[in-house]
């Protein structure tokens, strides 16, 4: 019996273990998200909790999972680059509204970062956590590389980005009402700037213009945040 367990645990050291566990967990997350019909049940959130649960339950070392996990992560940079496709598809809208897009995302991204800096001071969080939280309003791929460069904890950044996105997506309709947003362009830009790709999924549900502008905002806000962190 003990022998069998050792063999099984040895099997988890193959890259295919991490890959298949991740894909199955994510599939369960997507399925639950469809049934629950609320962005609070986010596929990414569900799957990472499931995987952590499985690893803890069967006492599988994180290093073993990571071998396969790294293979999945390879696709992160290419997928980020492809956001360019989304922006290009909205090129006409971008050209029409370039000034509101640029100024709105520039101010929004600045406010996001200033908020994080001030609140980290209020709560006495150290530099490492500040670096992890600073890029939390932009899309995960960009946030991860910014956090890495600034010496943050990448998993904390991923969690913060997901919490931000889930919250933004769940409460976008409420925020639109509270802040009296009437213009769909304004709504889309605000959603995309504050809650990146996850918010954009909600914006697409609200309307075509909202979805398109949110997509544009997530790309532009990502780049602007990179510029801010690089030069300030």
């Amino acid at each position, binding site marked *: 019996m003990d022998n069998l367990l050792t063999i099984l645990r040895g099997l988890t050291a193959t890259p295919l273990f*991490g890959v298949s566990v991740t894909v199955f967990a994510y599939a369960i997350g997507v399925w639950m998200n469809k049934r629950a019909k609320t962005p609070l049940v986010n596929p*990414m959130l569900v799957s990472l909790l499931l995987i952590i649960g499985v690893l803890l339950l069967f006492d599988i070392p994180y290093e073993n999972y990571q071998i396969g996990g790294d293979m999945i992560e390879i696709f992160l940079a290419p997928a980020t680059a*492809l956001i360019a496709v989304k922006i290009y598809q909205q090129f006409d809208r971008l050209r029409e509204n370039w000034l509101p897009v640029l100024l709105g995302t520039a101010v929004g991204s600045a406010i996001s970062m200033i908020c994080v800096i001030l*609140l980290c001071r209020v709560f006495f969080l150290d530099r490492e956590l500040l670096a992890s939280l600073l890029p939390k309003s932009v899309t995960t791929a960009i946030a991860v590389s910014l956090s890495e460069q600034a010496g943050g904890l990448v998993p904390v950044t991923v969690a913060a980005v997901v919490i931000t996105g889930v919250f933004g997506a769940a409460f976008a309709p409420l925020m639109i009402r509270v802040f009296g947003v009437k213009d769909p362009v304004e709504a889309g830009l605000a959603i995309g700037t*504050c809650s990146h790709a996850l918010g954009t999924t909600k914006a697409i549900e609200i309307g075509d213009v909202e979805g398109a502008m949110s997509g544009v905002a997530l790309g532009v806000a*990502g780049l602007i945040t990179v510029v801010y962190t690089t030069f300030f």
Partner: protein
Amino acid sequence: MKILLQLAGIFTLCVMSEGVAALLPFAFPGSAIAMVLLFLGFLFKLVKPSQIQESSDFLLNNMAIFFVPAGVGLMECFDRIRSSLGPIFVICILSTVLTFAATAYTVRLVVYFQKKHRERRLRRG
């Protein structure tokens, strides 16, 4: 084969962008450079989005799964952030609401001034 070639093309672009990033005198993420280069490629008609359609659909539609492994890393640093969980949560939510408001009001202001400017030009013309 078509999809493999598309993927190889995108991967090559990413590798080249990492090279550009390494040459820059400041830290700038390679993936952001790749995004800008690809956008410029579309703009100057060097590539068409339809040429990488299959692989871009695949990668964009499944984007969220690529972040899961990084998120699982939370289990390794959970002890480190245990005491700061509350503040992290508050920071995430508060700054999201404020960012939404700041963006919305800025856009509203800009659109308002643009409209005024246009009306003035119409009256003159």
